[in-house]
């Protein structure tokens, strides 16, 4: 289904058409649920938290000042709610000293992975994503699926933009490493 811009539905809801909110829920439900699931690691809890986040966002819609995107605001609500449920902060700050951004070329990061067919690539990716900790999966979801900028992710998770960047580099490198390892194992 093709959705309109979020502000279109928000204006309708603010003018009394609460049914327009259903479109916003349908549009963002998978990402909101995925965020909650990656923090909580339990489908039932994640669904409950995601529902609560949508209800809370609806009740606070009048105070939403549009300084950030609606989606960023919503993801922040669900992330905070999920973190409160687990009573721990899942994303720890990485000291910059512990991480060196190597001078890789893009090709050296994905040797051979782009040469296999798409189904094989998806299988390799699935394996690599399963190997990632939940918190890293969360950043991948926010960055690639949610199309959030580094600053948006920083605002959602409370990490500094430089830390988000460093973590994404590290995750990306790990994904390629795992995919390459898996591919070598399959070939041997």
């Amino acid at each position, binding site marked *: 289904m093709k959705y309109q811009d979020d502000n279109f539905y928000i204006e309708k809801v603010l003018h009394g058409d609460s049914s327009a909110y259903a479109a916003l829920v349908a549009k963002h439900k998978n990402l909101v*649920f995925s965020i909650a699931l990656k923090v909580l690691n339990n489908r039932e809890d994640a669904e409950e938290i995601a529902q609560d986040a949508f209800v809370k966002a609806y009740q606070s819609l009048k105070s939403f000042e549009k300084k950030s995107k609606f989606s960023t605001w919503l993801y922040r609500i669900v992330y905070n709610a999920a973190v409160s449920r687990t009573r721990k902060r899942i994303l720890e700050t990485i000291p910059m000293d512990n991480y060196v951004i190597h001078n890789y070329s*893009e090709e050296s990061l994905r040797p051979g992975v782009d040469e296999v067919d798409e189904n094989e690539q998806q299988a390799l990716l699935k394996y690599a994503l399963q190997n990632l900790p939940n918190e890293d999966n969360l950043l991948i979801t926010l*960055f690639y*699926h949610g199309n959030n900028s580094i600053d948006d992710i920083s605002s959602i998770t409370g990490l500094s933009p430089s830390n988000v960047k460093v973590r994404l580099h590290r995750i990306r490198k790990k994904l390629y490493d795992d995919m390459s390892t898996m591919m070598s194992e399959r070939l041997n």
Partner: protein
Amino acid sequence: MDTDNLLHDDFLASLIRKAPLESPSDEFVGKVMESIEPLAPPLYEKQPYFLWLKSYVPYFGLGALIVLILYSSDIPYFNFLSARDHFSDMFIHVFRPFIASLKTLVSSRLISYSLLIGVSAGFLFLIDSLFSRRFSS
């Protein structure tokens, strides 16, 4: 390759975006919609005219003061009003008792310094409170 380009790896991005996200149950949207109450539509109350005018009084006052200063100054093209004829003499008559008492006050160095600091601080405070109220979100 710089760090920003590394993050925007089209190959990995397209691969990840093709992988489906986790979905909640089919009843998810219905459950959310059951939990919400319709929001009251916004009320557009017309602001009384005098309230609207009142909010601009400081600006009118400031504008009038600037015009007064400009037109009674020695600046070319603005100096066709005589400050002495129009304002100073009139003010001197009205404020003579006040000026006389002020003269007594400022003859003391301690009082004049205190007044100077007090008036400056008061002025800064007024300007700050006026503009912070006006421009704060």
